[in-house]
């Protein structure tokens, strides 16, 4: 291994993601009639295990000539530390816990919590989410954008098409069959498990002891650790009432070519076959009313590498390790 032979690409995910937040912050300030000094809220879990990830974005937002006030707010404290202004604009107000008379107007709410059921232990958590959603703050993301990330939506976009049922992508990409084809080539086959014709066909695949080996069963959840793989699928489905089956999607397993590498985890080196997953970040600010895109930028990458024997790839779930791309 020679150092000059290794070409590692630039990875500016911190500054690029922070730039997305700052564009939203600046746009809010320039398009709203402000009633207080503006801030960005990082909505987090409590306790928050991803704080060391989030802090880098906070620091980047503060390293600017016009430093942006950023406050971390645990999801469970939304109702005690924010309120909605009694104006037609419904500005979201943030009250400093150390200084209750000091009020900030929240320009952007960055959600690092609220993506799973455990963030909503009771009715007040839903009330808190509603408070954010109905406010004038720019949400990252809105509840609709969150819903667009549901596995079910991915499945609807990626279910194999036929001449009778053309791709739903035609609704979003007009008059460019080549682009649709190229996009579809990046999809692996994903099926519903409902009672539609393709759902019924998928049920046969999922319950067949041999066919099931090419598939992974996924629920409508973010955040890893919830998937059922290959031959574990038929017994898992059998343990569920059939009425629950449609809450899952069946996805053809992606099979990467064999790669050999070393993974360091908890001070221990493990050598062997590995699987890599490349995440590409992007930031987008758009107007939902007009469809106008104000900002749309690529924002760095994440490479995660895991042993080829472990099925789940979540770094936080304790299976993978962070990695770098090497250009060859």
């Amino acid at each position, binding site marked *: 291994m020679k150092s000059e032979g290794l070409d590692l690409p630039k*990875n500016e995910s911190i500054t690029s993601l922070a730039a997305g937040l700052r564009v939203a912050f600046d746009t809010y300030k320039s398009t709203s009639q402000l009633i207080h000094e503006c801030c960005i809220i990082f909505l987090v879990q409590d306790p928050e295990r991803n704080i060391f990830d*989030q802090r880098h974005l906070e620091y980047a937002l503060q390293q600017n000539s016009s430093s942006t006030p950023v406050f971390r707010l645990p999801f469970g404290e939304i109702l005690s530390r924010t309120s909605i202004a009694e104006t*037609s*604009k419904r500005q979201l107000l943030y009250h400093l816990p150390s200084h209750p008379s000091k009020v900030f107007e929240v320009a952007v709410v960055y959600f690092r919590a609220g993506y799973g059921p455990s963030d*909503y232990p009771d009715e007040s958590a839903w009330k808190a989410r509603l408070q954010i959603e109905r406010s004038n703050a*720019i949400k*990252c993301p809105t509840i*609709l954008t969150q819903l667009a990330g549901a596995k079910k939506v991915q499945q609807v976009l990626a279910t194999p098409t036929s001449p009778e049922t053309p791709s739903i992508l035609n609704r979003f990409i007009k008059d460019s069959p080549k682009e649709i084809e190229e996009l579809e080539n990046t999809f692996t086959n994903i099926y519903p498990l409902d009672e539609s014709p393709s759902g019924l066909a998928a049920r046969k695949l999922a319950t067949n002891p041999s066919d099931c080996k090419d598939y992974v069963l996924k629920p409508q959840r973010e955040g890893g650790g919830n998937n059922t793989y290959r031959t574990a699928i038929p017994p898992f489905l059998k343990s569920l009432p059939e009425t629950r089956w449609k809450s899952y999607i069946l996805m053809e397993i992606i099979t990467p070519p064999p790669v050999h590498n070393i993974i360091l985890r908890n001070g221990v080196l493990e050598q062997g076959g590995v699987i890599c997953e490349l995440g590409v970040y992007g930031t987008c600010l758009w107007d*939902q009313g007009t469809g106008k895109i104000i900002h749309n930028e690529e924002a760095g990458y994440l490479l995660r590498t895991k042993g080829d024997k472990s099925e789940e790839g979540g770094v936080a779930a304790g299976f993978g390790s962070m990695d770098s791309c090497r250009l060859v």
Partner: protein
Amino acid sequence: MTQLHGLTPSRILEVDEFIAQLWQVHLKVKEEGYVQVLLKISKQDLLLNHSQNLSLGLFRSDYMVHQSTSDDAPTVKQVEFNTIASSFGGLSSQTSKLHKSVIREAPFQSSKCVVDILKTPLASRLCSS
């Protein structure tokens, strides 16, 4: 994106209670916006009472290389598209810096040397975080 939202609300709702609850929040916000528009008379008010139309996404699209058999050309396949709390953007830049630093500073006389550098506590924490 807004068109996508209208795609299959009923099909999504019937599958998952959590998703259905999120959808209920959306409906409440929509209803409130709608009522205000009806009640207001002047054009200026209409503009002012539009709920926040600006929407921000920090997304992460995940891919893996797929190759059915060793004879097939490798292709890129999407694993999933994250629209909320897309994580590790703060750490991945740092991981890249760590690896660049290792390449720059390690003498590369033996692989053991690289391993020793990577095993220092900070590096270890970054790699396994």
